[in-house]
């Protein structure tokens, strides 16, 4: 049975021309779920609109 993320995974793999064998799907999905969970943790933290990213960070 298809998991909720499977359509998204299929679409992105196609858009980026990334190979995705069926045998890899469970691990890719599990890793993506972790990344999205951590991403949500970051997303839900309110930041001022003026906050600049730190792409090359000088400590």
């Amino acid at each position: 049975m298809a998991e909720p993320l499977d359509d998204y995974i299929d679409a992105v793999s196609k858009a980026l021309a990334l190979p995705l064998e069926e045998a890899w799907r469970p691990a890719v999905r599990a890793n993506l779920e972790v990344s999205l969970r951590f991403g949500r943790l970051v997303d839900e933290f309110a930041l001022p609109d003026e906050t600049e990213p730190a792409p090359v960070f000088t400590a």
Partner: protein
Amino acid sequence: MTNKPESTAADIAKAVAGGQLSAVAAVEAALARIKQHDTILNSFTDVTVERARAKARAIDADIAAGKKVGPLAGVPFAVKNLFDVAGLSTRAGSKINRDLAPAKRDATLIERLEAAGAVLVGALNMGEYAYDFTGENVHDGPSRNPHDTTRMTGGSSGGSGSAVGGALVPIALGSDTNGSIRVPSSFCGIFGLKPTYGRLSRARSFPFVASLDHLGPFARSVTDLALAYDAMQGQDADDAACTTRGVEPVSPLLGDPIAGLRVAIAGGHFQKNVFPEAIEAVSRVAKALGATHVVDVPEASRARAAAYVITTTEGASLHLDRLRKRPNDFDPAVRDRLIAGAMVPASLVDRAQKFRRWYRSQVTELFKSIDVLLAPATPCTAPKLGQVNFTLDGVEMPVRANIGIHTQPISFIGLPVVAVPVPLEPLPIGVQIITAPWREDIALRVAHALEQMGVVSAPSPRGL
């Protein structure tokens, strides 16, 4: 000078410069030890025998000619195999990179150590493309822990931890994106320095996550760590993130008193999900330093999450083309993480980078009231090779994902850290001595004081 296996770099350099030991003898002793023990430890992927012998002979010739030699004269060292070594393909723990043309020039940090008289003896095993906390490698086999060869070295600089912990070489270099210097230091019972982001040049090393990549040294003593660090400092136009600050030598300052430094213990995130050994190690260090004040590092768990997002996406970006062309030549576990990383929405990555700036400002504020922060380097001592889960407080948790929980929130904003080994039985474990940006001097002085007190030390390899 007996040239014992556990001779420090400082001892070797002093003996070589003073004529009591030849550089050739120092290098041959390291090569013999590698030959004797590395069939078990599996820390080296390349031993540069002829190069090392030629360099050692040149040092001895200089001494014979009355020329001045550097502070690391005759000291054997080795580097994680993501450093360019002229004549070798920079494999970065991968199968794919073995097809690259051999590097034409050494990495900057190798050049600087050799300019100080050190002698490169080889390249070291590592987790594939540095996306690893275990020290295991599907292509080259795992590097093994010198205190119990059935256990992990920690990664991804596993060979560096194993080679120094096993006393094959007194100094090694590694990289640290999320903990890859501090984790092997902890598991292998040695000292490791992850300097401030931008302090040491990364030129001609294979990258992983440009936002978070650092390079640094491992050693069996703080004096050696500082000697290597001092020799490698300095700006480098070949690394866009390298500081333009001048060289700030620490070796002359190591013995300066540490009384008056404000030392705090990291609470909250850093005291959760840890085994009793990690708590015991921090407690011993804190007690020796008279530290009782516990501070909360604001949003450290979220910082770890943001570091994870940046790592998986920048890593994926780096490897996109290799994922398309040679997916079956990756370690499958690394490949699947990277493919997933390529699928994370860009908006979340941008949020993570913005959060990073916010978090940095909060921690900078914290360091106005303290000088040193203590935290575990790892939540546990070295797990068994291949171990997938561990149980803590009745809860089963994945090993790999949790090894770096205490290192990630620190490297996320580039703070300097010395990982110091607390020689617990039966296995050592590390503590992070964390300071404000550019204050490696304080971290190294505190580490040196702890070493003098006998609280931290690199134990003799127990598994050899």
